[in-house]
């Protein structure tokens, strides 16, 4: 079950999407999120969906993986859809007690679901196709102007990168702990919500202890490999904003602009 969590995971590859400058990808994702909230009708959403689907296609990431990444948010999506379905005013089509379904409700619910799904797929494509180090390097460079006001940009980027690095390790460890506690007769499946939450304690305590021990060992290992923060660091992979990046950027900006214009007209 834990293996379904693909958020924050990276699938190595050599596609154009993988090779695009991480700084550009970061900016484009932010632009995409803004665009997503300015889109308003089926045409604008369809155009944006087409854009994101082509990104998936070009990246060579298996659609199966993308779908799997959506599993953890199914509940939120369904909940939002129901709320919008029943609480949007408009011409009433069906009603039962306090529940009313309107034509506007159906329209908004569908568009809302599409919006959330595109938001999640679009942002996860960033982490799927960008290695955490590239991602944090990109973030660090984009935010580097803030170093002047003593924002610890490098430290934040390093923390984020290590957090991402340890996600699979800790997932593996959690599975081991669950198996070990089950072997000792722990019961995670029955009982009410409170009982089940309490059953999580024997998982969380060893997981936390182990995470602290790992953090300590990693810190020593990093010091032994001469890490001393942001002092005189270089990078193996230099970020170059090349012709492909310029093209990717232009195409994306045109698509986003088109979506926003269409959105203004309510399409």
């Amino acid at each position, binding site marked *: 079950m834990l293996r379904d969590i693909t958020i924050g995971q*990276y699938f*190595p590859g050599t596609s154009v999407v993988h090779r695009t400058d991480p700084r550009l990808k970061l900016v484009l994702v932010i632009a995409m999120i803004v665009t997503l909230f300015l889109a308003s009708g089926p045409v604008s959403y369809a155009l944006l969906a087409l854009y994101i689907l082509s990104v998936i296609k070009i990246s060579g990431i298996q659609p199966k993986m993308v779908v799997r990444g959506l599993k953890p948010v199914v509940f939120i999506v369904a909940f939002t859809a129901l709320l919008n379905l029943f609480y949007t005013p408009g011409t009433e089509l069906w009603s039962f007690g306090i529940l009313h379904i309107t034509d506007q409700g159906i329209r908004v619910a569908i568009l809302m679901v599409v919006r959330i799904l595109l938001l999640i797929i679009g942002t996860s494509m960033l982490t799927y196709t960008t*290695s*955490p*180090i590239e991602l944090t390097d990109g973030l660090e460079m984009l935010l580097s102007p803030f170093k002047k006001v003593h924002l610890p940009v490098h430290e934040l980027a390093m923390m984020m*990168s*290590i957090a*991402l*690095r340890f996600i*699979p*390790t800790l997932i*593996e460890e959690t599975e081991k702990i669950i198996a070990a506690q089950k072997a000792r007769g722990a019961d995670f499946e029955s009982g009410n919500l409170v009982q089940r939450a309490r059953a999580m304690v024997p998982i969380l305590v060893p997981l936390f202890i182990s995470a602290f021990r*790992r953090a300590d*060992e*990693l810190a*020593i*290992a*990093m*010091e*032994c*490999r*001469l*890490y*001393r923060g942001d002092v*005189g*660091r*270089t*990078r*193996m*992979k*230099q970020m170059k904003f090349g012709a492909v990046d310029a093209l990717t950027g232009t195409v994306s900006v045109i698509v986003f602009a088109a979506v926003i214009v269409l959105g203004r007209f309510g399409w």
Partner: protein
Amino acid sequence: MSEIIKTEALRYVYQTAEGGQKVALDGVDLSIARGEFVAVLGHNGSGKSTLASHFNGIRLPTGGAVYVDSMDTRDPNRLYDIRKTCAMVFQNPDNQIVATVVEEDVAFALENLGIPPDEIRRRVDDALKAVGMYEFRRHAPHKLSGGQKQRVAIAGVIAMMPRCVIFDEPTAMLDPSGRKEVMRVIRDLNSRLGITVVLITHHMDEAVQAGRVIVMHAGKVLMQGTPREIFTQVDALREASLTVPQTIEVLFDLNNQIGSDLPIDALTVDECADILEGYLRPTAAN
């Protein structure tokens, strides 16, 4: 000056959780020469890992001194150079890999050193080739086997081009095939690249491969010498709660039980087999 690591009356005392004091190292005098392959043996709590952590300034002496390439580890200004000279590989490969792509992890130390990108690229490729992990350079470390992860960790330190590498029980968490892979790489570092190797271990069959064995017991150096000199002292090793290599144990016990007078210094299975064959078929030997 030919020695790379030198300890003088090294003493290390730490506070236990109960508030008491425990002496982990009690007057250790050692010197390790350039290009040597030294194994440090000892059972749990003998002080062998504590000793290793003094060799690149992770721990500082309570008394006495440690010199790495003539630099005193207590001098905070030299710590960076000490760690550049004497790198360290730890037991758990998961907890020393920083990056999510093999080659980016190997580049980590070089990036910290501020080396130009082209040079980093070249040294990363060389280091990965040296440990036989070049084909895996774009893989995610968490998908590799334990032995492969440990080889990536080794590549990460040899990319720094240290003159000495300390291995703190590098095979303790590996399966037999992973142990073999890692030991092959360690021997290779010493023989082909001329890097001084200090191997902390409790596996006799690994210590046998070293040029010199140092046996730690209760915070002191119990004995040191070539593997042949050390492992034939079966009684002394057993007193320090250490076993001897099985090849030697067989011959030693045989001598005791049937009163034979076999040489017991068999460090490999082949040597042991030859001795036994000579005993069982005196005419067939040679």
